[in-house]
Each structure stands twice: as C-alpha cells, then as structure tokens.
C-alpha cells in the first residue's frame, strides 16, 4: 500500500525523529534550537498530511516562527556555551537503557493492540479555516476564551517577575 501519502508521512516522521535526536546529541544549544525548529516544521508537514491545513500554517507561524525565535533570542543573549561531555554515571546507563527499551516496547504494544480498531481518514475532521473558526466560536468558545486568559496570566506573571523592584528613598546600605 505504498502511496505517496505514506511515503510523505514516513519522510516527515523521519525528519522529525532525526531532528529530535539531533537536538539531544548536539553540544551547542543554538544547534539544538535549530533542530527543534526542524522538528516543528516536520510536525507542520504531518498536520498538513492529515488535512489540518490551518493548524499546519499556525504551527509554522506561531511555533516555528515566534516561539522558537524567542528561544534563539535567549540562547544568543545568555551566550550559553558549549555543553561539556562527560562519560555519564553508571546508574544512568544501568537504568536508562532497559528503561528506554521497556518504555518503547510498551508504547509499541499498546499501539499495535489498537491498530485496525479505530481509523480516522485523513481529511475527515474539519481542517479548513472556516470550519475551525465555526467550531472555535460556537462549540468551543469557553475553552478558547479561558485559554486566552491563561496566556494573559502567564504574560502578567513574566512581566511581574522581570520588572525591576522600585528603589527605596534611603538608597543602598
């Protein structure tokens, strides 16, 4: 069943996983940030393949184009240096590799058990901006507004944390 759709899905998935692994393996944080941008772009491609075109475009605009820019800002401003490589502790090797294998086997088993039971055709759910707009402003209006207030709270918190405290009239000791 080798369709173009499947090939593209595997391609974007491979790019996504490669970007994620590269993010972990790179020593300089700016390279990790760039790998994360590649991951975001690959995810946007996957969304597009599912027929969610609006979400794909917004993923690029918001995630890859604004949030990651701020990540890159922070890395540039704080001049984060190259990561030091160490051998790693013995405990991490002893627990980590079996843990990783067990985790991935568990996920694979759950997925394979569920495969073939419930399938969603690509493009079945609403993906066009008009449909998403209708859903957002009719059925999902409350979650939409609450999410925006949540983001506002986060912004207020960041501003409150970052504001310099006012100087007292007495000055420093």
């Amino acid at each position, binding site marked *: 069943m080798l369709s173009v759709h499947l090939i593209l899905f595997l391609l974007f998935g491979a790019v996504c996983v490669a970007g994620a692994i590269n993010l972990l393996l790179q020593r300089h944080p*700016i*390279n990790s940030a760039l790998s994360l*941008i590649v991951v975001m772009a690959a995810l946007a491609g996957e969304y597009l393949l599912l027929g969610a*075109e*609006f979400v794909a*475009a*917004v993923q*690029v*605009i918001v995630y*890859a*184009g*604004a949030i990651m*820019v*701020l990540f*890159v*800002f922070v890395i*540039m*401003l704080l001049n984060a240096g190259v990561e030091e490589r160490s051998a790693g502790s013995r405990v991490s090797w002893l627990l980590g590799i079996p843990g990783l294998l067990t985790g991935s086997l568990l996920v694979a088993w759950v997925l394979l058990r569920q495969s073939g039971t419930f399938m969603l055709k690509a493009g079945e759910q609403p993906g*066009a*901006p*008009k449909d998403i707009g209708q859903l957002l402003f009719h059925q999902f209006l409350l979650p939409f507004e609450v999410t925006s207030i949540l983001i506002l709270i986060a912004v207020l918190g960041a501003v409150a944390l970052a504001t310099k405290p006012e100087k007292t009239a007495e000055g420093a000791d």
Partner: protein
Amino acid sequence: MPIVPYILISIIKSALVLFFLLTAVAYTVWLERKVVGRMQNRWGPTRVGPFGLLQPAADGVKFLFKEDLTPPHVYKPLYIAAPLIAVIFALTSIAVIPFGGIVSLGGYDIPLGITDVNIGLLLVLGVTSMGVYGIALAGWASNNKYSLLGGLRASAQMISYELSLGLSLVGVLILAGSFSLRDIVEAQRGSYLGFIPHWNIFPQFIAFFIYLTSAYAETNRIPFDLPEAETELVAGYHTEYSAMKFAMFFMAEYANMITVGSLATLLFFGGWLGPVFGPPILQALLPVLWFLIKVVAFLFVYIWVRGTLPRFRYDQLMWFGWKFLIPLAIANLMVTALIIAWKS
C-alpha cells in the same frame, strides 16, 4: 489535468517566475538608486548602459569577483547558513502569489501563478515569520557586538510588527471570506457607482495604512531600518559579510519588498483586475501588466519613503508597533466585523 502536463507546466511556471523575480530584484536595486538619487538632486547610475540599466549586471559581476572573506572568529556553520536561510525564505513566498487570471493554453486551463493554496495568505505570513531566522542567526554567528545588537534588534522588530501585519489583514479576510489569494482578488471585482473599482483599499484604508507601516518594519526599510543603520551599528547584522553572502542578504531584502508589494496589490488594490479588452492574447497578458504596474507603483512608494523620512529610534519603533499599530489594527478589525455582521 493529467499528471505529466501538470508537472511540466508547474516546472515551467516556477522557472519563469523565479527568473523574473530575480531580475526584478536586481532592477529594484537600480530603481532605488535612480529614484533616491533624483530625490537627492543627483543622477544615480548613468554610466553603465543607457540610464545605467546595466548597473545591476555590473554589480552582479562585482559581487562574484569580490574577495569572499570569512573572519576567523565567526561560528562557521551558521555564518554560512544564515544568508542562505534569508534568501530561501524570501524567495519561497512568491510561490503562492497569483499574478494573473486563468489562461487557456493548448487545451489546458493554466492559472497564472505557481500555485493557489487555499491557505495562501497564512503561508505567506508563515514564511515571513521564518525569515527572521536569517537575520537573527547572522547577527549571532558573526561574533561581533554590533552584529549581535543589530540582529537582536531586527528580530525583535520583525516579530513585533508581524502581529500588526497579520491583524491588519484580517479585515480584508472578513471581506473576502477566504485565505486563498486568488479568491481575495476575485472578491474585488466590479465597482462602486460604476467607476470606482471595488478594491479593498476603500473600505479598508486604515488597514492599508497599518499594513504599509508594518511592511516597512518587516522588511527593515527606512523609517524602520535601525538594525542595519550605518551610523548606528556599523552595518548591523551584515557587518561581517562580504561579496556573495552580502549580496544574498541584499537579494533577500529586495525580494521581501517585492513580495510585500505584490501582497499589497493583491489584497488592497485588486491584484490583476483592470480594464481588459482586445484579442485573447491581449486578454491574457493585460491583467499581468496591471499587476506589474501596481507592484511597481508600490515599490516606488517604498523607495520614496526611503528617500524622505528619517529613521525611528529603537524605543520609538517598539512603542509605535505595540502601543499604536496593534490597538489600531484590532479596532479596525472590530469595526469591520461589526459592519459585516450588521449587513448580513
């Protein structure tokens, strides 16, 4: 359309549009030098070819032969990648820009424009957002305090004005009802009172003003060119670049200008709509001519503003974007939405 002719036609269209875009970029530089020169009461390029028309060719040859110096302390991978990123994203958004109606050639109906995606406008916004990386990474990779400052300022400016850019376009989207650029132009057919064209500039003139200002900021042009101002930051993020890499930043900036100008004509000035008459070959080409005239007019305004206005100070720039343009864009959006809801 069957698959093989479709691929062939797409390849031909892409090659033609790309070639045309690159030539247009070179000649926009010529236009700028001429117009700014005349505004400053001097000639501009006149020696190379008639009216200096071969000056871009001479510049291209110069850039090719210039010494391509890589300073020793730069972060090499990103230093080389940054101009590539800038150019790639600058040239990508031309793919969804339609520049003519649908032409019937050899039995196939070919829409003039490389492709027509039903989220075309979002794609252009997305590519503009990604274009910030070229500048930010160039500033950082140059390992130079002036470049870093220039790159950071440019990135902050670009992401701030992306917001008002997007918000100003929502009024147009409400009027047109679609994200597809071709549909937005088609919604501007017809006229008011028989002679005033039904262009979006008339109901959305505030949005046009916001779009114009945000576009100047997005493309780092005067009055918003503090990131690359010579007197402020040596040359900002492209201080350490020479020869072809510098030419790539230059190309990216002018390609962005052309894309923004094309978007403005598509969204506010009716794109390729204009009086069409005559035999079928003329009927196919006249819309493209109208489109080109409108884009060149927009570029002329760009260059005119460049030659006239002083630049914003950085805090004034950020204040203007966040505290003036965004509330104005939201107000415009609300008024447009209210009027459309009341009408229907």
